């Protein structure tokens, strides 16, 4: 099963679990499964059009899936998937 690393700010929606094991073939399936298992994650990961929110980056290993095959990026049992929130801001 692929391993999904949950970022600290979202762990309150996964019962404080940092790593979740998911059986899936693609990143899209991983997102579907994890939001079924932890429904409160959905609004933080998925936008109103059903895509991954612009403030959320998904990495397969060290690669941003936007540089791979996006939601169709394949995953294996050894894939480590990181949910990475965009961190940004500014003074005015």
């Amino acid at each position, binding site marked *: 099963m692929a391993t999904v690393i949950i970022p600290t700010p979202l762990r309150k929606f996964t019962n404080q679990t940092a790593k979740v094991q998911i059986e899936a073939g693609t990143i899209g399936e991983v997102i579907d499964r994890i939001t079924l298992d932890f429904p409160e994650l959905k609004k933080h990961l998925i936008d109103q059009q059903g895509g991954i929110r612009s403030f959320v980056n998904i990495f397969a290993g060290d690669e941003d899936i936007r540089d791979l095959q996006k939601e169709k990026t394949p995953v294996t049992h050894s894939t480590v998937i990181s949910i990475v929130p965009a*961190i940004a801001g500014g003074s*005015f």
Partner: protein
Amino acid sequence: MIVVESGPLAEMKAHALTTFPDECCGFLYGAEQSDGSRMISKVLEVTNSKAGDKKRRFEISGKDYMLAEKFALENDLLLLGIYHSHPKHPAIPSEHDRIAALPYFSYVILSVNPENIDHIRSWQLNEVSQFEEEVFSPEHLNQSI
């Protein structure tokens, strides 16, 4: 309440001053008490990866964020928030800060000018995604900034 130990507090201040007039940024680590109060025992400086105007914007790359989470897991620390500076601007979060902010995290902002740190304040999103100021400890307030 958020308490920043003297070591990491000094590191944040030095980071803000050395990167002036650009914004600096980094991560806050520590422990959380049962009453929700936080003790920051470690900060990790990261590069402001914003392409363009770093004087009023900051951004942390996805890879730096992944490393920050890994550091927390490996060192049995909690990743509790983000710090960044507002050069020549108050330590009050902007709308840009609010839009990109995450629940749970503390956002420490250092107001900095070329000579020194004017103010340090900390903020957290509330249930309706608006910033509320966190109380710094008296220990912090008694320190010279």
